């Protein structure tokens, strides 16, 4: 079992309010990812769960028992650190066995567990080496092994992949996912990389300035972001935003600014009835923009000038000037486009997002 409940968690550092009233229920066997920009409180939250940081107020419980004041060693958790935190003077075997030795496990049991973990991670050959003699990826595996051998109730990961190069990071990401499926241990994972969050998490917690912005499954965050921050943070390239004024003309609603004038689809128009004459923020993802063809006649369209063409092979990213602002569109690799081309761009109406200009909450 490994059910973690955070109830009204706060963290103050002298005058800084680093974590603000976090409430979260993490189910047994679930993989939950905390994601957000640096300084958003995600690591602090993780460290409070680990017991490395005191909780200013609120309760953290594992399987129903409040663990606020328990020492880290008594919480039955294992943690993987960003810099691996391998003991440099111990061999790989001793690194993995250390936790078991401290807990007075019998020698044969220690050996069995270390071998088992080493086999799972494919580091059986490295057991006699010192951390210094390992590559970044191998060190990461040893750090994972040290967590696995303990058979804890909860795994805590603090940006474990951020020190690896891009290719290895993708590879280790897949392995982590497999490992979680195989072990089924509850995992809490902190990262600033939204791709990691989307690919690994059963659920993702987006944080900013110590406040949880939204909790949900990856696609839920992607398709129904709760506010402008989540919308902009999740997805790459990021969502395009345009400040527009809502006006009424001939029974339908129009959103316009200096370079944009589009008729809002009915579904969105209904939600914006109360905002006529006011400013709102329109959001649209790059992949929901297309070069307008004959099929898109009834879609909202606008004119744009191409400033940069980024060929990615599988798609083309167009940086376009729309009035005063820049928008990015991701279009088919077959599109024939050149810098300085004038284009008519269509939006997929069902994929438009609207946010309040003041609160930035989704409307």
């Amino acid at each position, binding site marked *: 079992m490994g059910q973690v409940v955070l109830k009204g968690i706060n963290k103050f550092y002298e005058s800084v309010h680093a974590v603000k009233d976090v409430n979260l229920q993490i189910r047994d066997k679930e993989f939950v990812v905390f994601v957000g920009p640096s300084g958003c409180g995600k690591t602090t939250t993780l460290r409070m769960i680990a017991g490395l940081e005191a909780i200013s107020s609120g309760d953290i419980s594992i399987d129903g028992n409040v663990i606020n004041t328990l020492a880290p060693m008594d919480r039955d958790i294992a943690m993987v650190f960003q810099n691996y*935190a391998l003991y440099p003077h111990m061999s790989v075997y001793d690194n993995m066995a250390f*936790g078991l030795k*401290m807990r007075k496990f019998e020698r044969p049991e220690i050996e069995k567990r270390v071998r088992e973990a080493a086999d799972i991670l494919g580091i059986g050959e490295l057991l006699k080496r010192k951390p210094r003699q390992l590559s970044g990826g191998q060190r990461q595996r040893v750090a994972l092994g*040290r967590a696995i051998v303990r058979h804890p109730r909860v795994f805590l990961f603090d940006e474990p992949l951020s020190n690896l190069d891009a290719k290895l990071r993708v590879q280790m990401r897949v392995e982590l996912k497999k490992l979680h499926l195989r072990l089924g241990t509850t995992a809490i994972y902190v990262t600033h990389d939204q791709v990691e969050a989307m690919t690994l998490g059963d659920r993702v917690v987006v944080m900013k300035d110590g406040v949880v912005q939204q909790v949900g499954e990856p696609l839920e965050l992607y398709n129904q972001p709760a506010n402008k921050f989540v919308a902009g943070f999740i997805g790459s390239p990021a969502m395009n935003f345009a400040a527009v004024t809502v006006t009424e003309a001939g029974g339908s609603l129009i959103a316009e600014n200096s370079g944009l004038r589009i008729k809002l689809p009915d579904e969105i128009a209904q939600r914006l009835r109360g905002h006529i004459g006011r400013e709102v923020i329109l959001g649209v993802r790059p992949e929901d923009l297309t070069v307008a063809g004959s099929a898109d006649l009834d879609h909202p369209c606008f004119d744009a000038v191409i400033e940069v063409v980024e060929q990615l092979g599988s798609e083309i990213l167009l940086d376009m000037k729309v009035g005063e602002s820049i928008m990015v569109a991701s279009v088919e690799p077959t599109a024939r486009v050149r810098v300085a081309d004038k284009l008519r761009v269509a939006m997929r109406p069902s994929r438009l997002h609207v946010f309040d200009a003041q609160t930035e909450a989704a409307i």
Partner: protein
Amino acid sequence: MAISAVSATTLREAPPPRRQRLLEDERWLAFVLLVPTIVLLGMFIAYPFIRGILLSVTNSRVGMPGDFVGLANFYKIFNDGIFRTSVYNTFVYTGVTTVFKLALGLWLAMLLNRNFHGKAFTRAFILLPFIIPTVLSTFAWKWMFDPTFSVLNWLLYHFGLITGRINWLGDPDLAMISIIIVNIWRGVPFFAISLLAGLQTISPELNEAAAIDGAKPWQRFWHITWPLLLPVTMVVVLFSVIQTFADFQIVYVMTGGGPANATHLFATYAYQIAIGTGLLSEGAAIALAMFPVLFLVVIIQLLYIRRVEVR
């Protein structure tokens, strides 16, 4: 284009003067750069050392060049009771102070490695005994140990711990304890600050990982901090042992080797014989007798440090 331009300028320039061309040669350049160091080391270390060896095999005295006498001086000092006492004293002095300096220094370093208000100030303050000229601070200590004006006696008396005066520097054993205390007081800051620097190179994550792994505080110290601090500790101990073994100032100021030559160390006894009595050659022999011991200490510790670092 660029290349042709460069060669054109080179062609136009006159060939560099001879001196400059010599310095282009790395062997000459290396030699030139090494000269200041060689001169300094030669003048202030190698020459006095060789001169000392030459002195020790003569019977020269102040104002008398003397003749070659072989190892007679060494033979003489090995049969000298005071010399034997000094050898014993030097080992006790070095051994006891090093153990205390290491223990107290490590303890202080661990305390200072924590976060607290006024950390920077305290760290600077701790260094004071190390910064004050030794002779000055030792004079202060001498007053504190003075039989008549001793502030220590006054304190002990007023707390009711003693009834009469303790003659700190007048009793052979107490005098030895006194100079050991002063040496520890003076040496602890060096240990504390050096070990603190060593502690700060140990990532706090290692201790956190160990805490999660189930290690209690003293286990974390024993399994993580101590082994990782060992190379620094060895270097610090090495420096301290060399300095303490050849210590002069504290004993010279506090007791002058007394009472009745009971607290002489190698250096103070060598000074007394050579300068005080004028027996230059015998003094040189005493000073040189330190050399094999120090040499051995250095060799052992350097080998050990290398082994630890390779690990």
